């Protein structure tokens, strides 16, 4: 007897040819992962399958890494200046420790902002998780079948050399625009989204839920 309904499996996506996208067992610091294992997010359904996990390209961290390195190195040069001779040694030592604390805070906040600002594409929806600062977060999502238009751009020398850019998604949902900023391989991301839209349209025609 023929199967009337065949559930969609993750393998189905693995069969699709996305050779350039790193997949599954991934480095937690990587900026793009196709069908990642062990990835969960707060509003994820049990049957939902993560297809693509994205965050800003690592190269976008270079400015704050240079700044943090510079901040950590400053005390080594500054404490020998005659300008600070009038400061007692114990106070000078306390100021240096405070400076290192401030540098660590800068490093931590910059890293956490990069690490937790992520974009997730599942088999059902697009999710944008934003942590604007330490006390404000925003999670927005839109169903794949509500996506109307996907555009990507890669302007500039650095973006072209390191192959990253922005992917703009227009939707018919509550959140009209999603912008995946500075994500690696924007062309492949747009292709994945296009394939998922086709898949959703196919499901709608066939009357399948998943």
């Amino acid at each position: 007897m023929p199967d009337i309904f065949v559930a969609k499996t993750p393998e189905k996506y693995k069969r699709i040819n996305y050779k350039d996208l790193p997949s599954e067992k991934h480095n937690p610091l990587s900026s793009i992962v196709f069908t990642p294992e062990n990835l969960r997010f707060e509003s994820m359904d049990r049957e939902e399958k993560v297809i693509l996990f994205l965050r800003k390209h690592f190269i976008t961290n270079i400015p704050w890494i240079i700044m943090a390195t510079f901040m950590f190195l400053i005390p080594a040069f500054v404490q020998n200046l005659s300008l600070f001779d009038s400061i007692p040694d114990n106070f000078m030592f306390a100021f240096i420790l405070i400076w290192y604390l401030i540098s660590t805070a800068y490093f931590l906040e910059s890293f956490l902002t990069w690490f937790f600002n992520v974009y997730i594409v599942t088999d059902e929806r697009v999710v944008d998780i934003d942590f604007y600062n330490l006390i404000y977060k925003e999670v927005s999502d839109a169903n794949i079948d509500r996506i109307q238009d996907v555009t990507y751009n890669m302007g500039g020398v650095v973006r072209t050399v390191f192959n990253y850019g922005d992917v703009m998604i227009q939707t018919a949902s509550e959140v009209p625009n999603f912008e995946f900023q500075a994500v690696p391989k924007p062309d492949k991301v747009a292709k994945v989204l296009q394939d998922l839209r086709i898949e959703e349209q196919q499901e709608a025609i066939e009357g399948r839920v998943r």
Partner: protein
Amino acid sequence: MISFSIWPIIKIFIIIFLSIYIIFALVVVRQVQLMTKTLEVGFENQLKFLSIMHLMAAAGVLIFAILIL
């Protein structure tokens, strides 16, 4: 003429600053907990460790400042 030293006042400011900094470090610890609850990518323990170490360092500097200044 009355001699006046500015360093005791600076010590008070340093202690106030470090006390506020500890509150900030506590917020970081709490926020890392919330972030790792929102998104699990397999790096949670390291981040929590880092934030707790940061809090302990801040507390250490405060105690150190009270003792040596």
